[in-house]
């Protein structure tokens, strides 16, 4: 026991490696939230009037909404009036040439291990880097545009492709969808936009990297991915934030639209600052992610590795509208110390012969709480719908909790739905088996956890899988209760 404790100690004393912050001269909105601020942001971004109207409409609806309280998480109320809704590096001038980007900003990303330079070509990932409220750089735009692929920051897209934005913005997550989505619609500052034209298979992974740097700001970015018929794209998202004592809010919206025969794969490694080991500080991650399989035979696949954030509230969902469409959700959620996660998915079967698969692996250690909340809904006309859900929880330490709230609502007799969940701790016999073969307990736990999460990690693109595995090991190594 004492050894376990010492290992646990060692783990919990591990620092969050992305906890630093950089002082740069910032262009900031005044603190507070009102129509004036929204107009300010909109003017700052030189937005067309329809978008401002859209924002204001969202804001007015938001005023009538109340904060959701049904999630199994507890946190101090956020004073939304004390936040700053826009903060951007001052020197930034968006250019196509990376040489013109402030070297300081590039350095921030280099320090995070995200190289914005073209040397990234070797790994074949196009990156859109978002720092606080704005997109700093987008790489590989030239290569992609030859194929007709649009990959740029949201603000650029508004200017360059207003017809696409107008058509798809809010089509999957309506601005009034929920409290945080409405807030995001009102104040979102930037984000990524991606359009894959008909019949194009995107030759490289597209990636967005989010970084909160400034204090007292909320990050509200918006990602919109549109995959036209018969196209394919794999999209990655990563995020970090400095260690600060106060909680910071991150309320993002991701919308995915998949046309007939299109496939979108969306992977996230979420590593926001989780707070210190006393549970002080950390990011509140209240995110709305939803995709619609609008066309027949389309597919949307969500993969997430959730290791950061003090509080996570996130349900990447699929609306399976097209016949024969497929939705997938693979998730590993790790919580330690005082972290709380309430995450899961919604699979809404509307079209005929639709299929969905949910694999959720929760790992809770320390004093954390980890909840899976999911819904599988089969509508009346969704003949032959098929769902398989597997939700496993692993517990480490006797002060943590694992909870499962699956809702299964079936309105069609031809549906086949299976749900399975287990909760247990790491088998002592498994650890013993490893020990016997000369593997230290700490390594054995890493081994077992990695094996446990493999089904999900396998879904990640190579570069991410390696990072995710390291993250897992870092968060959990040795925390045997």
């Amino acid at each position, binding site marked *: 026991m004492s050894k376990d404790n010492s290992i646990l100690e060692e783990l919990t004393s591990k620092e969050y490696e992305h906890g630093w912050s950089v002082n740069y001269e910032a262009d900031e909105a005044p603190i507070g939230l009102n129509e004036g601020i929204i107009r300010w942001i909109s003017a700052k971004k030189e937005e067309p009037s329809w978008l401002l109207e859209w924002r204001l409409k969202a804001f007015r609806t938001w005023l009538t909404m109340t904060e959701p309280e049904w999630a199994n998480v507890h946190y101090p109320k956020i004073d939304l009036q004390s936040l700053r809704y826009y903060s951007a590096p001052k020197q930034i001038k968006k250019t196509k040439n990376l040489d013109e980007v402030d070297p300081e900003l590039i350095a921030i990303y280099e320090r995070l291990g995200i190289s914005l330079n073209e040397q990234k070509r070797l790994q074949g990932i196009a990156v859109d880097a978002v720092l606080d409220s704005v997109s700093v750089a987008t790489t590989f735009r030239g290569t992609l545009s030859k194929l007709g692929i649009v990959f740029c920051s949201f603000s650029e897209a508004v200017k360059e492709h207003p017809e696409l934005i107008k058509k798809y913005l809010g089509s999957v997550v309506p601005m009034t969808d929920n409290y945080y989505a409405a807030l995001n619609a009102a104040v979102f500052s930037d984000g990524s936009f991606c359009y894959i034209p008909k019949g194009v298979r995107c030759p490289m992974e597209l990636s967005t990297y989010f970084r909160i740097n400034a204090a007292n700001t909320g990050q509200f970015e918006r990602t919109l991915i549109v995959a036209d018929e018969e196209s394919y794209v794999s999209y990655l998202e990563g995020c970090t934030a400095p260690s600060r004592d106060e909680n910071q809010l991150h309320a993002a919206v991701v919308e995915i639209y998949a046309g007939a025969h299109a496939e979108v794969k969306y992977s996230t490694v979420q590593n926001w600052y989780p707070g210190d080991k006393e549970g002080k500080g950390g990011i509140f991650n209240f995110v709305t992610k939803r995709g619609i399989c609008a066309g027949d035979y389309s597919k949307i696949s969500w993969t997430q590795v959730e290791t950061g954030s003090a509080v996570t509230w996130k349900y990447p969902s699929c609306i399976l509208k097209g016949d024969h469409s497929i939705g997938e959700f693979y998730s590993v959620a790790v919580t330690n110390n005082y972290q709380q996660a309430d995450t899961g998915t919604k699979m809404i079967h509307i079209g005929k012969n639709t299929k969905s698969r949910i694999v959720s692996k929760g790992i809770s250690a320390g004093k954390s709480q980890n909840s899976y909340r999911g819904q599988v809904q089969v509508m009346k006309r969704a003949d032959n719908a098929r769902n398989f859900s597997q939700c496993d929880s692993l517990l480490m330490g006797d002060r943590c909790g694992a909870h499962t709230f699956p809702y299964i*609502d079936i309105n069609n007799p031809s549906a086949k739905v299976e749900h*399975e*969940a287990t909760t247990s701790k790491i088998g002592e016999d498994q650890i013993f088996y490893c020990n016997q073969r000369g593997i230290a307990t700490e390594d054995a736990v890493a081994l077992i956890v990695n094996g446990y999460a493999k089904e999900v990690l396998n879904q990640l693109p190579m570069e991410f899988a390696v990072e995710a595995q390291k993250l897992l090991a870092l968060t959990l190594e040795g925390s045997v209760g």
Partner: protein
Amino acid sequence: MSTLTKQDTFSSLLAAAPKNFESVRTLGNESFLAQGLPAVKAEEYKFTNISKKLEQNISNFSPALPFKVTAELVKSSVFEGFEGDLLVFANGKFLPELSSKIEDLEVSLISDKPELSLGSIAKPEKDAFAALNQASFEDGIFISVPKKAQIEKPVLLLSFNQANEGQVIQPRLWIEVGDFAEVTFIDQSISLGDTSYFVNKVVEVKGGVNSQIHYYRLQNEGKNAIEVSNIETDIQKDARFSSVTISLSGDMVRNNLNLNLIGSNSEGNMYGIYLINGKTHVDNHTNVDHTIPHAESNELYKGILADQSRGVFNGKIFVRQDAQKTNAFQQNNNILLSEDAIVNTKPQLEIWADDVKCSHGCTVGQLDEEALFYLQARGIDKMQAKGLLLYAFAGEVLEKIEVESFREYCDSLIQDRLGSKF
């Protein structure tokens, strides 16, 4: 909050309450008024809009009046092959003249036991209907099984319900089972007539150390009857409580079954079948609360839903921080037979301890095509083959009934419902 929460809608019901158990009733009353009837979006009643149901069907709440039950009716109503003791109720009122005098068992009216701490097990603050019953129940029955008594024959609690539109029947039971005692109850309700009345039942079971309690329930209410029941028990050290709930009809039926495992090495078992058709709506909410280490719970509910029926299942397993070495299993399987049937199921785990083995499984599906083909290939026609497979599906729960005659009776009811004999 629903309009039904207003004091005046319930005033005649509350006013009709006897004057005994003053503090208990006051508590119930206060708790009921504080909670109100479940609102439309209340999580616990999300898929069972009972407030609306009551509003639509019942305009004025008044207690149902007792009526005369003849010995012949009782005789013809007891199922075939039953051997055991009988307690008869009419609209929740105990009829001692038609009931057997049971050796080894103390049976009396709740009103004769003013010292009972009613509501201490089925707490009014947990459920508005439990609170309503506590505030306004007329009378009920107290059953006590002495220490070490082995009651070998089952005790049949036979309830006849016959009420006018809008009347409320509020049965209340308090069962005490002494240490090392064993007893089996069969709780059967028989509906006389198709009126839309409302049954609001509360059963509190106080088990002793190492006691064994079997509680079988057969719900066959009239097709317009609305029923809510709250059954709750604390399971002591080394004790075991097993329940089987069979729901066959009614308009809207809601069962709250709460097992609290409070002694180590205790075991709670919950089994159920809902085999429903027409517009019947059956909602089983079960809650197992593991508060201590080394306890076990098992749960298996199966549903077969035809026509426009709706089945709701919400199984909650709660494992508290101290409840290490818990084993908890839960399963819910459903078969939908028609386009219009709906299933809402939510098998829920809330686990705060780490050294546990908990699992739940849940399926919604159809009959196995291959099994059906296999039977048809052997000359069994499709309808009968379907019936056979459904019967086998339900059989897994039926076999948990340890009283043979009752099992056979339920068996025959299910066979009748499935449209063929096997």
